[in-house]
């Protein structure tokens, strides 16, 4: 039954996506009405220095896939839903002079408080630059993050109540049984082997990091509102997560950990002059690698998928060549499908790697003094 539904959905997807692309080409040379938000994003030509609200009104002559892709994987102060429909988001910007500008993003289509919406971002109305502004707005990424927070809270409190309701000795059911293998995996394969006997103390952090990254990776793959934001491929997000791992690691670090950094046992005093700076650099390179890995993997995945979708527009010469568009669709759809499947794997894999490495770093910091010969 379940597999039958899956295959029906698969067939519909396979048939509909080229058809949708084709019909939109046949109707109009501007590609503003294409099916998914992914495709819509490509259609927007982002020209330097032009206000964003002008984009859809203009008849676009030339496509710039790079700009479109960059626009799509970047954050925005408004949430693009469908065609010209945009969800305005709250704006909260501290200007260079120290005053705050607060409102909804649709108020900034025209200049407001010396600020204006350009390429989806709030910038200074005169210099067209975000320099010096502190933008604490609820952006597209933040909106998706809040959504993910809501989802996670609902999911895990319901799972928790299932455990309390059904008791310990009955088999899991529904959502509980879907999540239990994943939870067990995080506990058994990430936390326990790396954190040792004190793993329970760090379990909330490890599990929170895993599920927070996982759900945002997955939501990032959903190509339409209210998901689709490239949150986990945003350097600010990965930076924050990596910094939290750094803080947890160093706060939990025991005497043994600090001794290994500042006075590595078994190393001659003179060599410590070299070893200690290296160890101190090592403290920072570990979370730095975490930050870069998640950012690069997620962003790269999004760029590849968007590039493949762009193929339709490049080969179709922006709607001028219908045959090219059909050819591009024929190539792009299977590849995008494949990439999406791969990204689904990557979404799990990167959440796993981030938490696994976090657990390893924390595990190293809380390791008891027992393996002297190891170094």
């Amino acid at each position, binding site marked *: 039954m379940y597999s039958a539904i899956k295959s029906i959905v698969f067939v519909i997807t396979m048939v509909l996506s080229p058809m949708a692309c084709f019909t939109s080409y046949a109707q109009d040379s501007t590609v503003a009405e294409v099916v998914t938000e992914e495709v819509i994003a490509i259609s927007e030509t982002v020209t330097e220095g032009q206000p964003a609200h002008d984009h859809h009104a203009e008849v676009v002559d030339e496509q710039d896939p790079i700009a479109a892709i960059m626009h799509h994987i970047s954050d925005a102060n408004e949430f693009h839903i469908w065609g010209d429909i945009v969800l305005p988001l709250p704006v909260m910007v501290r200007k260079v002079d120290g005053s705050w500008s607060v409102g909804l993003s649709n108020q900034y289509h025209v200049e407001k408080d010396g600020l204006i919406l350009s390429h989806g971002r709030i910038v200074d109305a005169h210099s067209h630059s975000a320099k010096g502004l502190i933008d604490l707005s609820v952006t597209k990424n*933040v909106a998706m993050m809040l959504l993910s*927070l809501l989802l*996670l*809270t609902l999911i*895990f409190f319901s799972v928790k109540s299932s455990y309390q309701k059904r008791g310990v*000795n009955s088999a899991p059911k529904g959502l509980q049984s879907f999540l239990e293998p994943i939870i067990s995996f995080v506990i058994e394969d990430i936390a326990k082997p790396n954190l040792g006997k004190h793993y329970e103390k760090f379990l909330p952090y490890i599990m*929170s990091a895993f599920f927070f990254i996982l759900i945002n990776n997955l939501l990032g793959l959903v190509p339409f509102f209210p998901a689709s934001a490239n949150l986990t491929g945003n350097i600010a997000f990965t930076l924050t997560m990596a910094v939290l791992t750094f803080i947890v690691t160093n706060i939990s670090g025991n005497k043994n950990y600090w001794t290994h950094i500042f006075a590595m046992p078994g190393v001659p005093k003179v060599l410590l002059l070299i070893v200690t700076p290296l160890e101190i650099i090592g403290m920072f390179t570990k979370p730095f690698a975490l930050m870069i890995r998640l950012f690069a993997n997620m962003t790269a995945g999004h760029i590849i998928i968007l590039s493949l979708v762009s193929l339709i527009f490049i080969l179709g010469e922006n709607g001028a060549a219908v045959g090219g568009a059909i050819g591009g669709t024929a190539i792009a759809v299977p590849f995008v499908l494949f990439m999406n499947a791969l990204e689904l794997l990557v979404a799990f894999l990167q959440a796993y790697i981030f938490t696994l490495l976090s657990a390893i770093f924390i595990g190293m910091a809380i390791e008891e003094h027992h393996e002297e010969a190891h170094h």
Partner: protein
Amino acid sequence: MLLFDAMELITPNLGLVFWTTICFLAFWFLVGKLAFKPIAKAIKSREESIEEALSSAKKAKEEMLQLQSDNQAAIKAAQQEASQILKEARDLKSAIEGNAQAKAKEEATKIVAEARAEIQKQKESALLEVKQEVSKLAVQIAEKILEKELSNSKEQQDFISDLVNKLN
């Protein structure tokens, strides 16, 4: 243009850092502490209960096997005992039989011997009687034959005593 975009891409936005921190900390302390901890605890205690159930099942199986082998041993012992008892009974029977036979034989021999002795005795007494009778008769006959000469002749006297001696 590309370089500019790339720079923008790897420059962290303070606003997003702020919101990520708030969201994640909220998630960590709300869901992490209030949901993940009890969930992990529930999973752990279920694992323990499953393990316990498995080990107790194993123990019960072992006990059953033990019981079975005990039973078998008991049956074997009972069988042995029964055969022992049977054997003893058989021995006893044969012993009794042998004993009785020997006794009967002995009795028979005794009876025969007694009978023989009796017969011998009877025979002897009969012979003695016959002898006495014969001697009496002989004396009477001799008396009758020798009545007249017995009183005077010495030769006769000797003859008679010689006869008597021979009779003995």
